[in-house]
């Protein structure tokens, strides 16, 4: 009984300690993404496998922000992203006993959220939920669609990113990509995962990741140039 009490105390302590810890973005993760989570994840994964939901809460609080950002950048919709993250975590909880620890737990977890986001994109595409932005589309100023400003030579798109509206335009350009291109772009250029990690998450060869990423970047570059004029 004393052991159980200690375990609960340690779980509660870690929930408080790590619950609000921000996940690493690209600026932190390209080379300096924290790696120390691996051991701590495996510790709580082991507790989850023994049927301790409290241990799973630690993992939820630790990874929810990054999971949500992956889902949001892929689906392009805030509400959809929330649903996707919930479903992904529930799915992970159900199948956590199948996680064999061959890869990092976070890689396995982010692979699940990518799958769920992909399914959501498929559903919304079938309902024509999103209006994809095509290069030959006329500039649209309707709400929800990408608002294209006239090209400006005085200020670059990078500098405009401080504005929320500009960020939404970039997201609209991402939404216009094919879903296969979108997911590698989000994972590599926004979330900063390595080629190896992306290969593990998507279950595709390294060469396919590279070729998809090349096409995705070129497509987005053209879309951004269309929207901002000069990037």
């Amino acid at each position, binding site marked *: 009984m004393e052991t159980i009490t200690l375990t609960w105390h340690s779980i509660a302590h870690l929930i408080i300690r790590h619950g609000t810890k921000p996940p690493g*973005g690209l600026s932190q993760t390209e080379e300096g993404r924290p790696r120390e989570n691996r051991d701590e994840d495996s510790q709580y994964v082991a507790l989850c496998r023994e049927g301790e939901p409290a241990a799973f809460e630690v993992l939820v609080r630790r990874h929810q922000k990054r999971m949500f950002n992956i889902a949001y950048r892929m689906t392009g919709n805030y509400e959809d992203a929330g649903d996707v993250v*919930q479903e992904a975590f529930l799915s992970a909880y159900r199948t956590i006993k199948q996680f064999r620890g061959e890869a990092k737990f976070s890689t396995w977890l982010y692979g699940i959220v990518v799958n769920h986001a992909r399914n959501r994109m498929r559903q919304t595409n079938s309902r024509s939920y999103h209006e994809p932005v095509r290069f030959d589309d006329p500039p649209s100023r309707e709400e929800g669609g990408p608002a294209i400003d006239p090209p400006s030579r005085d200020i670059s798109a990078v500098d405009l990113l401080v504005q929320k509206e500009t960020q939404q335009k970039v997201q609209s350009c991402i939404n216009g990509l094919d879903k296969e291109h979108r997911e590698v772009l989000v994972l590599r250029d926004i979330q900063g995962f390595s080629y190896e990690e992306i290969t593990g998450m998507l279950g595709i060869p390294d060469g396919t990741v590279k070729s998809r990423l090349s096409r995705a970047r070129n497509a987005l570059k053209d879309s951004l140039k269309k929207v901002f004029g000069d*990037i």
Partner: protein
Amino acid sequence: MRQCRDIEEQLTAYLDGVLEAGEKESVEEHLSTCSHCLTAFKDLQRTREILARLDEVDPPSGLAEQIMSRIHEREERRKGLFAKLFFPLHIKIPVQALATILVVVLSVYIYKTTLPEMGNFERVPEPQVTGTGSPAAKKDISPKIPAAAPAPQRSSRKAQAEKKEPAPAPQTAAAPDIAPHDEKTFVPETHADDNNALSFSKAAPPPREERLKTRGTAVREEKSKAPEAQHIPPLPTGPRDVRSHIAMTAGNPGEAAGQAKMIMRSLGGTGIVERAEGNTAIVSGWIDTAVLGDLTDRLKEIAAVDESKSSFVSGMRTAFIEIHISGTDSGREEKPADR
């Protein structure tokens, strides 16, 4: 131009620093001479920078709580009622293990309760009646044989009557022997106190220890199956007398009968009853056939045993024995043969 297209395909890998050394040099050499590809490269660089500088989005507040709430709901559903019953005690016994134990216990119980009764049925067909007495002795016995034939019907009626109304006070061995000399009514009554009257009418009763085991269920079952007992195949040699007889002569039959009762009790006899017919005292009761020899020997010590008029039933573990003690004509007590 062809070279520019090849270089453009490699620009992403070059940007990420994953090109081989030779390829990297080739790309750098081309970029130093081709302004078109250099512009494309710079655009890709800025595209990547734009994506990297996108703000992180905060998840909706309470997302973790919603997730955990759904997980707890799922856990509650999964545990179900049985787990809830055991959860407060922190006993985690799988339902399958409990069910297995229950089935095993039930099986053993049913096996134990039905086995002795199966044994009774197996012992019934024992047609041989071997008596140690002479043909004359058998003649003495033969008139009593028909009494056993109608016994099932009579005894079953008797058992039903006992169910309906309180039976007369059962005669125990210690009770005074005032029963009438009527075999048909006497036989069931003597065993009514043992709750085993039907077993006597059908065949030999099971040994005492088995009767104890089957007390209750077995007797009820036999009572309910009394009409079915008639379907048992008839014995090839006709009705069978299950009684053993010992004929004795003594100067004082009453006194000898009292001593005989004591001997029977000392040898484990049950249902011992004494009655008188004129100058003859009759002591009857159930006794283990293994001690019949001892019984005869000890009876010889108190009075003369007429072995020619005695008969014993074999093939059963428990026998119903009648000891007929006749008074001597002269009125004087005969000395035991071995005294």
